[in-house]
């Protein structure tokens, strides 16, 4: 599943990083504590968060994440947009909260047999 498929399927706003819409998604991670994401998110995962600081993109690039989804209608700060395009990591947006967004993404990835369910 590509980031673009995800954006279409759930009607997500694409704020930036269109050049990364072809990235493959293999899972997701939900956290608003950036140090936690640095330590625990995995490659090609989608990061669901309400944080809009420029460091979000730096960490997404460091961890080679597929995309960032901002929840509850939050919009990225200008520096975040810049970094997103530079790094080719899309920033997407939804009006849903993290719980709903993660639930929908989880169900979809499981349906497609993409998720590795070993904790």
């Amino acid at each position, binding site marked *: 599943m590509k980031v673009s498929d995800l954006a279409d399927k759930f009607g997500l706003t694409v704020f930036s990083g269109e050049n990364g819409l072809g990235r493959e998604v293999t899972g997701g991670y939900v956290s608003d*504590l950036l*140090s936690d994401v640095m330590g625990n998110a995995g490659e090609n995962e989608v990061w669901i968060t309400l944080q*809009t600081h420029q*460091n979000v993109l*730096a960490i997404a690039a460091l961890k080679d994440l597929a995309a960032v989804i901002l929840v509850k209608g939050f919009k990225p*700060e200008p520096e975040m947009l810049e970094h997103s395009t530079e790094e080719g990591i899309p920033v997407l947006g939804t009006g849903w909260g993290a719980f709903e967004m993660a639930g929908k993404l989880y169900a979809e990835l499981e349906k497609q047999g993409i998720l590795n369910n070993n904790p």
Partner: protein
Amino acid sequence: MKKFRADLHIHTVLSPCADLEMSPKNIVARAKETGLEIMGITDHNSTKHAKLVEKLAEKEGIFVLTGAEVTTREEVHCLVFFEKEFQLDAFQHFIDKNLTIIPNPDGYFGYQPIVDEDENILEMVPYYLPAALKTGINEIQKAVETLDGIFIPAHIDRPANGIISQLGFIPEGLKYDALGISKHSSQNHVRKHYVLGNKTTLICNSDAHYLQQIGEIYTLFSIEEPTFAEVKMALNRKNGRFTETNEEYNRSYS
């Protein structure tokens, strides 16, 4: 140049997590006892006890930096200080405009009284003061800079509410006068662990919530006289002014 003993992170009874004994009057008495010469008054998202502490401290010859401990949108705690009353008031207005209002009925999160110099309660703040502002750390730093204030991300090594825990690392381009480290950590360890180099000033403060914690940990300021401008110069190591944590001081002189 003279050395002044400073503790720039002290809460008063107005912070819900602070002990009810932390009245402006008691804080000044305790600071006097422990030999503090410079104090920073930093309640969570409120400047409303700072001027009273300053007034009482002045009589004892203690210099007070008036400010607050702000919670940014990312839930990073930052110390901010202002020299003039109109700047402090302008920043209080900024807080009032941006604070997320969470009710604090019956002191659910702890009591938040504003008192006078005789410890009479004038007002109970009805909403939870430490809640996050709706503005991010970059925007708050700019607001402080516009008001010629001092900006210090607090206890950067703490597992919660420090800039590293919340943002992963110190954001590129963020301006600050110094970084605060928590009272039990070693400056050398923090510098190495977070790769800070030697250009950044690190200061140690008590983050006192109880009277006995005041002055327990301090930073020595080498300045001409205790004024806002001199303190700011020392934090930025300008014109021969500088600071030492007690760890550094003890190493050099023992």
